[in-house]
């Protein structure tokens, strides 16, 4: 699997993401600076990592979503390339219109930084194929603006179409219907607040995130 990791000014999970991708695929990802205007040919997965792009100025993810590389990411997503946005990356994907809704300030005001329990709500996507439907997993979260908001019609549609990938199994940030991660209508774009790339090695204390990356690799090998 050939992957690319986007780096914005203020990204801080880009190297963790690259390590997780290399661990699963054996191939070093291409690191793409936000000024790039093209995604290199043959990329199977683009990761939009966590961090505080542009210091969260205006709104979390707002400035990054208007940067040159995101036009190329939108184009690649439309061609069916897999796109994974984690934490600030999820905020960038909603701000760029690749995913519906918005991530607002946590309902409790506090920055939440701890391990949380999640339920796998859709185990059929390219990102979740190695998880069991309804399985409980533990991923770390570290965010201030993770409170997912969308109007009721959008929430009903996301649930009806099986596009809720992960749900919090506990109260974390006030997210509508406890949504932690959602898919686009094509199923090739996943945005989520919890960090799978921070749960891939024994030294992390938990390896529940590793199956997301292995599943992506295996899925691509099966279709190659």
């Amino acid at each position, binding site marked *: 699997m050939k992957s690319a990791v986007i780096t914005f000014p203020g990204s801080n999970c880009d190297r963790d993401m690259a390590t997780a991708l290399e661990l699963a695929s054996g191939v070093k990802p291409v690191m793409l600076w936000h000024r790039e205007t093209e995604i290199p040919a043959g990329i199977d997965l683009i990761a939009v990592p966590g961090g505080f792009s542009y210091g969260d100025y*205006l709104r979390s993810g707002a400035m990054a979503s*208007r940067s040159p590389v995101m036009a190329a990411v939108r184009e690649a997503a439309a061609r069916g390339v897999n796109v994974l946005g984690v934490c600030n990356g999820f905020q960038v994907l909603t*701000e760029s219109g690749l995913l519906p809704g918005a991530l607002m300030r946590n309902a409790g005001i506090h920055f939440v930084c701890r391990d949380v329990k999640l339920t796998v709500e859709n185990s059929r996507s390219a990102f979740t194929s190695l998880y069991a439907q309804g399985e409980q997993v533990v991923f770390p979260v570290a965010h201030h603006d993770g409170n997912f*908001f969308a109007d009721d019609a959008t929430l009903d549609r996301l649930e009806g179409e099986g596009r809720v990938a992960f749900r919090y199994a506990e109260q974390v940030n006030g997210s509508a219907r406890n949504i932690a991660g959602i898919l686009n209508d094509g199923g090739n774009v996943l945005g989520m607040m919890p960090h799978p790339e921070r749960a891939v090695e024994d030294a992390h204390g938990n390896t529940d995130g590793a199956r997301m990356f292995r599943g992506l690799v295996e899925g691509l090998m099966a279709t190659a």
Partner: protein
Amino acid sequence: MKARVFVTLKGGVLDPQGKAIHHALEGLGFSGVNDVRAGKLIELDLADGTSDADIDAMCSKLLANTVIENYRIEKIG
């Protein structure tokens, strides 16, 4: 010419920041506050002749996220 853009959360959208401000006001002994909503004021210094349509596009494309926010433009001079 200058324009002010007021960005506010839509009605029904939870405003944790407004709630915290409300709580702090009560802590200071101001008991008559029914509700607080926090927003943003963005001041634009614009080339003369900038069209209303352009200012509106600036708001809808970047300054406000219309999923959760409303905006109002006030032109000054």
